[in-house]
């Protein structure tokens, strides 16, 4: 089975800090996604990547960035953390051309104070 690792389960950061959220997968899935989960909003797409050097903005990308230098990971960067970015963040992967459902990481609960 694919394993998607988000190493931090809980993070507390200060407003204005630069924050890095990790996501590493072990099965060379080409497609990777970052979502945030907020009460009453389900999961909303932040950024996604269909391969190395390919990144795309999702519906709530403002204040976030990603880079994809290899297949295994897609780190999410919060350029200057804001209280509005307090949320639970999920990384997910998918093998290209096989939409059998995401494999999710366990999530990172980020609190910005």
């Amino acid at each position, binding site marked *: 089975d694919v394993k998607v690792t988000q190493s931090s389960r809980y993070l507390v950061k200060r407003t204005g800090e630069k924050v890095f959220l990790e996501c590493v997968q072990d099965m060379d899935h080409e497609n990777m996604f970052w979502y945030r989960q907020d009460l009453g*909003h389900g999961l909303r797409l932040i950024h996604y990547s269909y391969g190395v050097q390919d990144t795309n903005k999702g519906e709530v990308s403002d204040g976030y960035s990603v880079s994809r230098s290899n297949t295994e990971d897609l780190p999410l960067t919060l350029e200057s953390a804001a209280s509005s970015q307090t949320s639970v963040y999920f990384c997910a992967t998918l093998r290209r051309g*096989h939409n059998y459902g995401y494999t*999710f990481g366990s*999530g990172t609960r980020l609190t910005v104070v």
Partner: protein
Amino acid sequence: AQSVTQLDSHVSVSEGTPVLLRCNYSSSYSPSLFWYVQHPNKGLQLLLKYTSAATLVKGINGFEAEFKKSETSFHLTKPSAHMSDAAEYFCVVSDTNAGKSTFGDGTTLTVKP
């Protein structure tokens, strides 16, 4: 463009009675549809998926869903609820191969003894 509407934010049933969680979708192409379950403070787990094969899809833990194109619906059902079914359920529409997905806002299922 794609969207998904979960018609009930909360559903409460008694243990042993049927479960119905309703989902309508909109998509400009032939979509893939999914149901995910999230138990408290956990990640998301795939329950079942529709990817243009049989319209009645069986998933894990006794859940099933029927794809009805004419009604643009993908309702989730289970004949007999168990206490362990209490969780948040998400209906998801996705473009078939690339996997870019739109989540519903979720339905919280409560199971009463």
